[in-house]
């Protein structure tokens, strides 16, 4: 807290200097910290500790440049940021599935990128197991960025600016794959969303007032959804079959990674943070609204061999029993998980 105050004071102070300096044309960079370097009070310990890749402003800015650079794709027009847009919590607005090079469509919905420091497995099937190597999946996927790591390094090393920028962070020499991946993580690990109205409520901070209906929604969520959307990150990081289909021929989900029949149709339980911003929903983006999602859980599920036990009810079809009032309360609460500071944070935006 004290640190934050000091930073703000420094910011104000420097802003003052900046105004003065403008007159004399000198450039004063505004002072700011790399975002996401501290663990929010209501969060657990991160998986990817800052000590694994100590954040610095220069490395973070390099990572940000890479994240928004379309040259990371084969065709030069798809960046990480193309399918992960800040204003929708780094999900892809209005896209059921990812939209890659040559207008090719993927098979899965581009998820929100947030609080990745707290994740040990990535992608809907958990195939990527380290934040540093995760970007290799979309980069090399033929229907996403369709580029090779070797080619990216060739492009970066031949660029007018990247070699100097990398050298400033990692020392002289050609840019290596490790430098490239570590720099990118400086940005992706910084994507911390922890200042929603719910967070302020959880930390007893000002601005954390929840209405009666929102509070009722929180209670319903913890009671009826909390076994999967658990804890402060609103996910237990497991893979579950939530009754979307009878068969999973198009996408076997977790089984694609494990090869185990019991994992067919299981997909990662996503966090609910910023969920109001990230339609469409589910691994294949089939639901357009949160109302449709709740209707699916209360009455739209279908049976299959690997359907999660959580949804089985005696004497009736699988699902979660929800009244209309409970749905209304849930929808109200889910809005409180929207973090406007996160989606408006200029430090996370594209800087040309």
């Amino acid at each position, binding site marked *: 807290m004290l640190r934050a105050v000091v930073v703000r004071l420094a910011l104000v102070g420097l802003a003052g200097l900046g105004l003065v300096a403008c007159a004399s044309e000198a450039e004063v960079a505004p002072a700011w910290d790399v975002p996401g370097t501290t663990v929010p009070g209501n969060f657990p310990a991160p998986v990817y500790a800052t000590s694994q890749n100590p954040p610095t402003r220069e490395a973070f800015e390099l990572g940000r440049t890479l994240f928004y650079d379309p040259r990371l794709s084969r065709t030069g027009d798809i960046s990480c940021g193309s399918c992960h847009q800040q204003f929708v919590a780094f999900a892809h607005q209005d896209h059921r599935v990812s939209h890659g090079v040559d207008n090719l469509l993927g098979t899965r919905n581009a998820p929100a990128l947030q609080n990745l420091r707290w994740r040990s497995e990535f992608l809907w099937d958990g*195939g*990527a*197991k*380290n934040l540093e190597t995760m970007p290799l999946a979309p980069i090399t*996927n033929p229907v996403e960025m369709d580029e090779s790591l070797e080619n990216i*390094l060739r492009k970066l090393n031949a660029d007018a600016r990247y070699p100097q920028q990398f050298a400033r962070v990692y020392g002289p020499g050609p840019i*290596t*794959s*490790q430098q490239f991946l*570590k720099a990118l993580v400086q940005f992706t690990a910084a994507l911390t969303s922890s200042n929603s109205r719910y967070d302020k409520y959880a930390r007893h901070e000002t601005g954390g007032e929840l209405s009666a209906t929102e509070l009722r929604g929180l209670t319903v969520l913890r009671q009826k959804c909390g076994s999967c959307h658990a804890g402060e990150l609103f996910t237990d990081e497991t893979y579950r079959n939530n009754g979307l289909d009878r068969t999973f021929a198009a996408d076997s989900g977790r089984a694609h990674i494990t090869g185990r029949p019991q994992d067919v149709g299981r997909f990662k339980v996503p966090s609910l943070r910023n969920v109001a911003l990230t339609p469409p929903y589910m691994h294949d983006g089939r639901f357009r609204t949160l109302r449709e999602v709740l209707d699916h859980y209360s009455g739209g599920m279908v049976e299959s061999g690997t359907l999660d036990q959580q949804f089985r009810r005696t004497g009736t079809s699988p699902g979660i029993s929800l009244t209309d009032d409970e749905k209304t309360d849930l929808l109200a609460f889910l809005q409180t998980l929207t973090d406007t500071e996160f989606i408006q944070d200029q430090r996370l935006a594209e800087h040309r």
Partner: protein
Amino acid sequence: MKFRSFTFLIIASFTTLFSACKDDADVTTPAAGTLDIEVDHLVGSTPLTLNTGTYTTPLGQQFTVSTFNYYLSNIKLKKADGTEYAEPESYHLVKESDAKTKMFTLTDVPAGDYTSLTFTLGVDSTRNVSGAQTGALDPTNGMFWTWNSGYIYTKMEGSSPQAGGNKQLVFHIGGFKKPNNTIRTVSPSLNGATIQIRKDRTPAVHLQADVLKMFTGPNPVDFSTLSNTMGGSNSVKVADNQAAGMFRVDHVHAN
């Protein structure tokens, strides 16, 4: 790497300093030596020639080989009294297409007579999920699965008229999670020889890796039913074949 050797130098200097303080008569700093490891690639008894060599499996199926790469890692040497030397940061990517990868040198091996050699065919599970690596484990080496994190331990590609579809053979053996763990650790016999590490000698172990042994052994491979595997239970069958005898020590050079 530079940093590491620098650190090593510092440690080495300190060691020297400390040793110097002791009574000189008692000091017996164990001498260290090197060991060359050389690998030859065969198919049965024939040397492997990429692309142009044609070979036949015991099932009578012809095949060619266009790629043969694999990881040798965590190399250990053991003396008769049980003391062991483990090469630090021991990851070697051997490629038939790149002769210089078929010979490498272990340095700073404590002097002594070693009676067994053990190594892993593959990469230990930790390094499969340890993030961005360098050297032999650099993902630019084309031995890393991007959609399912982990290294390809052995990459054999080629073709066979008996293979289905496009006649291609794709054997990407990898995976570290049960039940499809394909990491195999082997200790090919030195045939009674000892590896004598001395300060001023350069002994060498000549290994042979037989491609054919991927397809023979406990799980004979019929290309008409198995010509493509990238991890999973079929890769486990091939890994078991490899562990059963893909590597043998041809001979040990004393110097």
